């Protein structure tokens, strides 16, 4: 009675499901009204990415990846959200971010753009050895939706979170096609992210000190 053409294995299915969770939390960030919940979602998303890394490390016997997963857990699940959260607490204004579009239209736009990304990657002859290949399409979708997050939300926290979650999307992609990257390179990537976070934090603080707001709608002096 069962007529399905291709049934993924339990491993494939659950790995894809985790990648989907990462994508869905990106969508949730896009619509999250509170900046605080956006940061929590980022933390959750990073946790899912870390989980994916652990899955790859365990199933493909890549011991180095355990170290990376550990680093990225400390950095992306604990440290980065902590830094931004603290900034948010200090600023005491603008708990609510600003949308430039209605939520439903944003989500529809994001759907369209992720379909585009998924089909672009799907048309490529890429075969992963560490994770199911569809996760690469999902990673592309995550990256594209994070663009929307940066473009459609006009406050510094959302934009920074958009960049960090873009990095999460790239992490998923690297787990799919580049799980064997040398350790030194991966550590360099993570270190770079840490530096970037600090700089983002400094600039957010500068912005907040000057304008007394987290909104970027005041940033319209320079043009032409």
């Amino acid at each position, binding site marked *: 009675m069962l007529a*399905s053409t291709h049934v993924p294995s339990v491993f494939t299915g659950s790995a894809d499901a985790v990648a989907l969770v990462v994508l869905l939390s990106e969508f949730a960030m896009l619509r999250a009204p509170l900046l605080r919940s956006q940061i929590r979602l980022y933390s959750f998303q990073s946790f899912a990415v870390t989980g994916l890394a652990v899955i790859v490390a365990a199933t493909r016997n890549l011991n180095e990846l355990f170290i990376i997963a550990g680093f990225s857990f400390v950095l992306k699940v604990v440290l980065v959200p902590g830094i931004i959260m603290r900034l948010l607490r200090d600023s005491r204004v603008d708990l609510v971010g600003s949308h430039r579009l209605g939520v439903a239209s944003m989500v529809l736009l994001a759907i369209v753009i992720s*379909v585009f990304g998924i089909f672009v990657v799907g048309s490529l002859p890429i075969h992963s050895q560490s994770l199911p290949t569809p996760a690469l399409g999902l990673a592309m979708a995550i990256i594209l939706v994070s663009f929307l997050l940066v473009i459609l939300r006009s406050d510094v926290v959302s934009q920074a979170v958009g960049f960090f979650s873009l990095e999460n999307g790239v992490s998923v992609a690297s787990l799919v096609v580049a799980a064997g990257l040398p350790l030194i390179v991966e550590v360099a990537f993570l270190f770079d992210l840490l530096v970037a976070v600090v700089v983002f934090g400094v600039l957010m603080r500068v912005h907040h000190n000057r304008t007394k707001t987290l909104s970027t709608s005041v940033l319209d002096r320079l043009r032409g």
Partner: protein
Amino acid sequence: MKLAPAEIQALQDLTIVVFAPLVSGGIAHIEGRLQGRRGPRILQPYYDLVKFFAKETLVPEDASWVFLAGPVLAFSCYLIVPLLIPVLTNYPLPLGYIGDILAGGFILALAGFAVALAAVETGSPYAQLGSSRAMTFGALIEPSILFVTFTVALITTTDLPYFEAAAVRSSMSQIVRPAHILAVIAFFLVVLNDTGRIPVESHTSTIEFGMIDEARTLEHSGPAFALLRWGSAMKQLILYVILINVFIAPWGLAGSRSLGAVLIAIPIFITKAFGVGFLFAIIDNSFSKLRLFKITEYMAVAFLLAVLALLVLFLGGG
């Protein structure tokens, strides 16, 4: 003792007709308990139905025959749908082939249309408000239903509910596949919407402004109203059947045509329905109702999940 397929089919219908008020009453009771009340009696919907059937029917002055025909048409629609879906058996019954999931959806939509039409007949502003809202949100949730159907169709290469249920039963990998999980969540959201529960609508409220489905029946009375109430309980149970016996837990169904197997499937199904009802009651108590204009966001989420289900299938990873 073997039952004829036609007898089982009739039994399916009968199960829905008879036990729909029981499930509604059960959920209302659980809800009451969760809120620290004693809650209404589980059998209360039956008493209500008896009471309404005994009352006279009042028809608004300007209303035509549609006002009374609507509830009857709706009720008969709800009688047809159980013939198409796996209520008691895990093997397809003869009439199960006359329509797929989409056909079931269309017949349910026809019922909704009939009720809306009857409500519009009255000329009452609240009833009209309710039907226009119900139609609008019905149209908005429609894409999600379609994409869930497409997903089922891609998984099973047919869109008969029996085959999807069989696929789910067949192996663990069918259950954890992302397409299935996403489709289930999307359909769950659809059911929440279609049964008029929070966060879309608070079904117990008496505030007309927030009403959608409930507002449509405001002008009906007597046996017509009883049919509407009964029908809405049946619709709820039908949606539970699809959710449970097709997507979430298609186990415990009769595997043969023997009387015992079929009869034992009835209490098992009712238990499962109570389980889902319990979940719905918890959701009801833990979320607040969305503002009317925020409901589109809810629809967008359901649509997103359904589209993603289809996408991962296309990618070959679903």
